[in-house]
């Protein structure tokens, strides 16, 4: 499946979904003017990817700022991943945040509450901290 890459802007994050490799990345800031315009194509691609059977999925998220709409979009993505995991696919989410960013840690903890079959890792580190 074709790789989805979207360059970051001041208000939207960078997207790099390497579907064939099973590695999805989302990083930067997310407070788009129109949440549907930005996340619409992302959801469409993700839905298409999850509809097909496949191997393990790793989703790396490294956000420094996001708004409430983006939070809801993330929760929707997590539910899609959770459904895939429930169906037996190995799904790992790495929630990366800068060392000392307590808000981002707590947001990650909150998101993980609803995930049972997805492995959710809180990864504290530098801007590009390894897991």
């Amino acid at each position, binding site marked *: 499946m074709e790789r989805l890459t979207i360059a970051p802007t001041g208000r939207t994050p960078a997207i790099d979904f390497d579907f064939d490799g099973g590695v999805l990345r989302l990083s930067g800031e997310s407070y788009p003017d129109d949440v549907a315009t930005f996340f619409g194509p992302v959801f469409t691609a993700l839905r298409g990817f999850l509809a097909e059977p496949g191997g393990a999925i790793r989703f790396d998220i490294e956000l420094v700022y996001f*708004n*409430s709409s983006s*939070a*809801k979009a993330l*929760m929707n993505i997590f*539910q899609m991943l959770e459904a895939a995991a429930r169906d037996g696919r190995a799904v790992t989410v790495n929630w990366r945040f800068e060392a000392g960013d307590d*808000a981002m840690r*707590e*947001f990650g903890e*909150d*998101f993980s*509450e*609803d995930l049972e079959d997805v492995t959710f890792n809180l990864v504290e580190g530098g801007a590009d901290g390894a897991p």
Partner: protein
Amino acid sequence: MSFNLFDAEEKAIERARALGERLAEAAPECSAGFNELLEAFTRSYREQRRLVRFSDRLQGQLATVNQELERRRQEAETALARLQEAQEVLVQSEKLASLGALVAGVAHEINTPVGIAVSCASHLADATGKLKALTEQGGLGRNDFNRYLATATDTTALILANCERAAQLINSFKQVAVDRASAERRSFALDAYIQETLVSLQPKLRQGNHTVSVDCPAGLTVDGFPGALSQILTNLVMNSLQHGFDPGREGHITIAVAQPDPDTVSLTYADDGKGIPAEIMPKVFDPFFTTRRGEGGSGLGLHVVHNLAVGPLKGGITVGDAPGRGTLFTITFPRVAPAA
């Protein structure tokens, strides 16, 4: 009693669970569908709680950032005010420094006639001493006396002429210095005033063999602030000397006064130096802008000129290229300065 923002939702979920249990007995075929709906509602409730928490946290961060922004804005404003004060002080000290240069220039200028007067007086004293000695010895001849008379006539004429020259210099300088220091308003003949200002600059101009030609309508009287005008001319000349004329090159400065209408005076000041590069032209009136920072340039000379032209003179100043080569300043101001 504890307050729960989501009390209604939680109670609704409790009631739905109870209902689900009754439904499992009464209509088991509906139970799975009902539980699915209940699960969706429960998740939605959790998401709502989460979103409210996110939103509160983000707004809290925003408020903190806004406070920080306001604090920094105030800091920046305070710093700006201090900077403006410091700038004002520097501009004043620059004015004083140029007054000092004016004094030095005039002192140098007066030195020549006074020096001649002193040596003439000394020569006359010697001759008088000799004449006196001859008279006392009784050996005074007609020729001695005639020679003495010739000497006395020559030297007294020179002493008189040079003392008059010195007095004239002091007079013109006195007026310029008083105007410069007092910033008082008065009527003055523009032509003569330009000349008087140039006198104090003569030593500096002569050093490089630079010449100044003035073309000003005779009898043009300006009612305004001569000190400001004198300071402007001094700074423009110093600017030409320091930046326009390369060492060893004789520069020519022309000052031309015209009246586009009877109430307006337009003074153009041009030199035939190397001119101002186009890229720095827009900045020359900015305070502290200088191309000679390391060599003692304060960057205030032309800034002071600009301030005086728009301030006391209530006029304006423009800078451009002189025809051929060099720099041209045009200062336009009302002949009678409006009351402040």
